[in-house]
């Protein structure tokens, strides 16, 4: 196949960090082939994972315990589910809630009855519980009051729910937290980081959410059957696939990106390498063009169904729709863009000048899809399993040079302008959740989290300027221990080009939701539904194959899900 012939080395087509790592672009990200959910589903398909519901002790109201066992080539994992009655006054979307409709633990292996008894006492307490190394992930979810009951009603009455209602919500339950990596006594990531199936980032968490989705689908059918044993029907498979798992994601996720610079570099570098590889292709063979057009059409339908209340996002979606129209026009059969060299690069460059940032980022996602053989291997090394070494023998002069070369964006921030230090980030007493406060209006600035990279880099640069160039950093830091964290960070930033969000995250202009979307896109979520500039609702696994569809040849073809077209239904 000639598709792999390259016009230039991919490195020449890499988008620079100064363009990619800006909040405006991160906040326009979409899922790609290397997103974590996509990777997990591909592995499940490739390795023929088997998912069995081995226990479903739920009463007529749907309360009780269920167990799903996942068998992979090497080992088993189990999702232990506890469904509870939830007092209406305790129902809240907030992470600070203390009771939920359902709580979950992902268990390493198959739990014994004693394990389940222990988890029955701990899992429902979530953050207030204590766990063991046999537990990998903990989560909880609440029913969607807009949809859950309607679906049960329809099924119990022998009909299918309204596809429009399914599409409008997109999930039966939404999680409000998914914890792992040693939280609350659970297994450290180091315990399972060498297992191929869990080595890439967030695979244990993504597996948990996938299994929760299956549980929610089983739960509505169970309730309908218990309510009307002779009349109830199962949920149409197409509607099932269109149901994912919801989530409300807020500020808690934002500091994570700042405090894991190497991890973030790995993600963005992999995606940018993937894009550069495709842009470097000499030709776009007909089969790949066909695939691209089919996906573009799918994306257009997906975006046409993407409707939110948020005015800003609504405007961005409108611009995106126009951008997709242009992309369709430019890539139609016989288009001149495919007559010249490096057509995908030409398409991207044309989009840069005429399409919104959100349109450009969706194009990135689309360009990667037809080339699994070029792209998918890039998703194999996204994790970080070692801490970066600090070089104390580096001289002050060398340190100054790398600050100037790699952190010009940070040095350019004018902290004399109070708007550049408008906010501070801190941990709240409420469940130790990250929050953002207005520095001059709210208490607690003296306890702020030290994640203001631009401000810290400027302080480092000033102090470096006051010391002789041949002094080693070991000596410098004896006088400036307060700069130790940022000195270490700058050395990392010099080694990993995509390690930094190149914006000031304590500025008045910083919109945290951009940080969230940048990360969530790597998870593979869709249907971003911003509720403010501080948090967003999202949908995970919408359109993904069901557990009995994982062996199908098209198991990986679920990006940009669209509302299923089914026969007129009996909606109630």
């Amino acid at each position: 196949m000639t598709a792999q012939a390259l016009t230039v080395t991919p490195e020449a087509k890499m988008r620079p960090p100064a363009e990619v790592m800006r909040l405006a672009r991160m906040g326009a990200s979409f899922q790609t082939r290397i997103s974590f959910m996509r990777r997990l589903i591909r592995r499940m398909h490739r390795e023929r994972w088997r998912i069995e519901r081995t226990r479903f002790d739920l009463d007529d109201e749907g309360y009780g315990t269920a167990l799903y066992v996942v068998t992979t080539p090497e080992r088993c994992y189990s999702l232990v589910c506890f469904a509870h009655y939830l007092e209406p006054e305790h129902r809240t979307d907030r992470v600070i809630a203390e009771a939920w409709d359902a709580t979950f633990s992902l268990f390493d292996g198959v739990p014994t009855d004693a394990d389940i008894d222990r988890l029955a006492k701990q899992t429902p307490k979530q953050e207030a519980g204590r766990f063991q190394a046999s537990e990998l992930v903990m989560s909880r979810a609440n029913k969607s009051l807009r949809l859950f009951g309607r679906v049960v009603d329809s099924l119990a009455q022998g009909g299918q729910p309204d596809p429009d209602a399914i599409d409008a919500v997109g999930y039966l339950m939404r999680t409000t937290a998914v914890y792992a990596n040693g939280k609350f006594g659970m297994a450290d990531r180091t315990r399972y980081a060498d297992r191929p199936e869990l080595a890439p980032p967030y695979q244990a968490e993504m597996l948990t959410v996938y299994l929760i989705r299956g549980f929610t689908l089983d739960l509505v059918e169970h309730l309908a059957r218990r309510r009307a044993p002779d009349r109830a029907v199962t949920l149409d498979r197409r509607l099932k696939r269109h149901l994912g798992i919801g989530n409300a994601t807020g500020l808690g996720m934002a500091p994570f990106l700042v405090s894991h610079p190497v991890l973030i570099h790995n993600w963005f570098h992999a995606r940018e390498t993937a894009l550069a590889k495709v842009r470097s292709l000499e030709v776009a063979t007909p089969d790949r063009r066909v695939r691209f057009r089919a996906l573009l059409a799918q994306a257009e339908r997906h975006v046409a169904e993407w409707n939110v209340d948020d005015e800003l996002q609504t405007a961005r979606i409108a611009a995106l729709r126009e951008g997709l129209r242009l992309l369709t026009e430019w890539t139609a059969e016989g288009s001149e863009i495919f007559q010249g060299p490096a057509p995908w690069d030409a398409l991207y460059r044309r989009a840069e000048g005429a399409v919104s940032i959100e349109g450009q980022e969706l194009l990135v996602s689309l360009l990667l899809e037809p080339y699994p053989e070029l792209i998918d291997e890039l998703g194999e090394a996204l994790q970080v399993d070692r801490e970066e070494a600090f070089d104390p023998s580096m001289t002050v002069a060398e340190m100054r040079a790398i600050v100037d070369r790699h952190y010009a964006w940070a040095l350019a921030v004018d902290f004399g302008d109070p708007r550049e230090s408008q906010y501070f980030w801190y941990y709240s007493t409420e469940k130790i959740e990250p929050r953002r406060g207005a520095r001059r209006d709210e208490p607690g600035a003296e306890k702020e989290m030290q994640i203001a990279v631009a401000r810290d880099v400027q302080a480092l640069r000033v102090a470096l300027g006051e010391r002789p160039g041949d002094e080693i950093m070991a000596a410098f830091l004896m006088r400036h221990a307060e700069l130790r964290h940022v000195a270490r960070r700058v050395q990392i930033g010099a080694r990993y080009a995509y390690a930094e969000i190149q914006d000031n995250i304590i500025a008045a202009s910083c919109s945290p939701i951009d940080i969230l979307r940048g990360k969530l896109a790597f998870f593979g979520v869709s249907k971003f539904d911003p509720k403010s500039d501080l948090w967003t609702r999202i949908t995970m696994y919408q359109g993904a194959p069901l557990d009995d569809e994982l062996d199908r040849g098209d198991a990986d073809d679920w990006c940009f899900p669209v509302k299923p077209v089914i026969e007129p239904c009996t909606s109630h």
Partner: protein
Amino acid sequence: MHVSLSEIQTTVCKAAVAVGLPLGLGEDAGRAARWMMASGVGSLAAFVDALDALDKGRSTGFDADRAIAGDFGPKPAGRLLSALRAGPSACDLVASAPSTDLGYGRITLTDVDVPIVILFEALVASADMDKGQCVAWNAGRGGAIEAVCWRGSLALIKGAPEDLLATDSAKITMHLVARKPRGLAITVDRRIQRDAVEIDEATWRRVTTYGDRLLVEATETSRLTGAGAGVIDTD
């Protein structure tokens, strides 16, 4: 109670910041505590003692001008030298010895409050070195201790593991080691962790109580900034 290694790392780091250490030193303390607990040697109580000593003012930092010459002593005099404050810089100096005029000279740290903390900071620092760090002190009743940290592994050359737990302050010497020591006694493999780290609740509470000082009381304004805020939950 069962505590994960990542909880130990993050909690000790927060506690260190809460008692007034800069974040970078807190990060080093967190890593060292994690490695100590992963090794099965030592006790988290050592780190709590070091935090207490700083918080109560029994321990202090060092004179940078003297320290650069390899002589770490408490400043102001009359107090103990904080292992949490001095350890990372001492390790830096040993690690950078080949590229400085210090050559392979000996570094001394006088009146160190909790010596074992520095041993594990040296162990972390050694992980990415192509040489080792030797740490030695006299543990009072336990006698002399000499240990070599070699690329993340620990060899106890003199003394017994239980001697490491002696709580007496001591003078420490450190130097670079060019050859791998024979017969590594304790190996800390970063990929292989024990299933459980059991810590008595009282010790854990002492650490978390420090970390809690960094929390900011929730206000109505802050509540309105979290995920799910401002929406009547009829979702």
